[in-house]
């Protein structure tokens, strides 16, 4: 009895719903097997994995739509904004959208909706006029006529004025606006308040020994662009088999390797719904076997976290769950023998030695790039922190599980390291907040295209790039 939803994710939720209680129990038992450790202290050495809020194993799909997650988001974010509005404009009344009176200056808090002319709609397929829709999708769907609308439970109102530039915002943000209703029924915006960087637990950065975390993403094993020699160089460097003494001593201080998505690329021609012959079947599993061999070498010596990405065999919508949960022992027979190997969700949140890390495999920032503009990807990352929301465009244009009681993408506590994988180039910035927060933003480039991995020094939040390239022939 599935309600018709205009979303491709209805198929996915159907399979989740039809899994019986027995199989859920088996999955839960699998998660609690002894050598996996407790879900919070995965490596048993004072490191904490905080991915529980991103796990959907205990969620039961009951036919709900996305209005529930929007309600949870609005409720939580609005409570926060109400407390901030008191200090921002204490003399102004706060009212709901339906309570607006013409000419009365006030503050309203609600969810933004951006009406975009060029945003592809599934209804275009059914439209009788076939002229306007171009067949080639543009990379970015912005248009000068885009309009912002503010919504809360009572109603919605169009936003006017020149203070807000629609190109900087996306659907799904919760903001507070100061302004007044005009005669035309629009809300003329005079000022805007975003939540701002969340509070951060301070990190004493002076007397700590050097400890390194390696970030890499987009290995794309199995694709035509991945170079096995380059991958092997990366593994050899991390495990300390390469380089002079200085390099090796740095490699000896690596405490974690984080792979931020897109580790395999299954050849697309095989996935067209037809039955596979035995030759094709082995072609399908070759990339994973190759990846397993590489990862075993790393996991043998260093704790390894692997996150699923857009091209990995995991679920499509965010939060992506651990690599096909109970099967990962089959997918990675070599690596999963080590308890240093941890299969994580995307987004991934963890703590190492009191340093908090938060990151994704790139889908959230890539989606922001389609519906808004910024100088560079780091600006998008900074905005998500200031909005205190990892993926504001979910579920509007980014696939998402329809949570009912919570919105797991709300950022409650500011991380020290915020990383995003599968970007086009390596970029990094140290962001300082108004209350003394310090965040290292890292854009991890795709390894198959750039050969670059990132090395972060946890003692001083400095990072540098490790670049691997090979040249064969004379």
């Amino acid at each position: 009895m599935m309600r018709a939803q205009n979303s491709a994710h209805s198929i996915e939720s159907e399979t989740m719903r039809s899994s019986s209680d027995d199989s859920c129990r088996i999955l839960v038992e699998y998660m609690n097997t002894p050598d996996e450790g407790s879900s919070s202290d995965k490596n048993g050495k004072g490191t904490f994995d905080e991915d529980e809020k991103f796990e959907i194993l205990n969620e039961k799909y009951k036919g709900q739509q996305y209005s529930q997650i929007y309600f949870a988001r609005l409720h939580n974010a609005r409570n926060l904004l109400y407390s901030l509005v008191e200090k921002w404009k204490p003399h102004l009344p706060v009212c709901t959208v339906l309570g607006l009176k013409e000419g009365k200056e006030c503050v309203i808090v609600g969810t933004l909706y951006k009406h975009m002319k060029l945003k592809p709609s599934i209804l275009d397929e059914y439209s009788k006029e076939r002229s306007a829709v171009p067949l080639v999708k543009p990379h970015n769907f912005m248009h000068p006529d885009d309009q912002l609308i503010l919504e809360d439970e009572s109603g919605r109102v169009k936003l006017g004025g020149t203070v807000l530039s629609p190109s900087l915002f996306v659907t799904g943000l919760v903001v507070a606006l100061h302004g007044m209703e005009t005669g035309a029924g629009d809300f003329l915006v005079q000022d805007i308040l975003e939540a701002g960087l969340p509070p951060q637990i301070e990190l004493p950065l002076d007397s700590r020994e050097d400890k390194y975390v390696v970030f890499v993403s987009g290995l794309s094993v199995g694709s035509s662009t991945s170079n096995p020699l380059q991958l092997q160089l990366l593994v050899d460097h991390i495990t300390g088999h390469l380089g002079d003494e200085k390099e090796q001593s740095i490699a000896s201080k690596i405490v974690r390797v984080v792979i931020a998505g897109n580790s395999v690329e299954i050849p697309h021609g095989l996935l067209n719904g037809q039955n596979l012959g035995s030759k094709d079947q082995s072609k399908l599993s070759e990339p994973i076997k190759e990846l397993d061999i590489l990862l075993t070498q790393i996991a043998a010596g260093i704790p390894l976290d692997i996150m699923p990405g857009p091209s990995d065999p995991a679920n499509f919508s965010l939060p992506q769950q651990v690599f096909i949960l109970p099967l990962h022992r089959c997918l990675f027979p070599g690596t999963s023998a080590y308890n240093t190997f941890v299969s994580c969700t995307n987004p991934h949140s963890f703590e190492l030695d009191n340093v908090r890390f938060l990151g994704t495999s790139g889908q959230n920032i890539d989606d922001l790039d389609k519906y808004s503009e910024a100088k560079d990807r780091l600006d998008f990352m900074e905005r998500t922190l200031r909005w205190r929301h990892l993926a504001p465009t979910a579920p509007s244009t980014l696939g998402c599980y329809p949570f009912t009681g919570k919105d797991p993408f709300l950022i409650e506590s500011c991380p020290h390291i915020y990383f995003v994988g599968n970007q086009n180039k390596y970029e990094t910035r140290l962001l300082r907040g108004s209350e003394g927060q310090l965040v290292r933003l890292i854009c991890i480039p795709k390894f198959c295209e750039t050969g670059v991995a990132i090395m972060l020094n946890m003692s001083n939040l400095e990072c540098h790039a490790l670049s691997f390239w090979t040249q064969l022939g004379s």
Partner: protein
Amino acid sequence: MASGSMKGFFKQKKNSSSISKSSSKSHSKASSNPSVSIASDHPKPTPQISRASLHLKDEHEEVLRQFDMNMAYGPCIGMTRLDRWERANDLGLNPPRDVEGLLKGGRVGLDCLWDGRV
């Protein structure tokens, strides 16, 4: 479509089959409130319950429907009333206690007003 005949995709059904279906539907919805006009063509449910308990059910159902329609607790579609009450409680919205009592006591509709109709 090429055949030009409507019968292929617009099957004509006998009226009797539709009547038997709707009567089985109304059976399962015996708890529906007869005093509130339902915009459907279901035949009215047979009065199997005594008038006294029917009167009580109206009141309870009315209270629960007011809870469903109250926007402060979020949208009601896709959640059972008890789940929605628990969520409202967890979020600190102080939902009315008598609604919780009614829902846990049983003998009332556990699904929201729009369940199965939207």
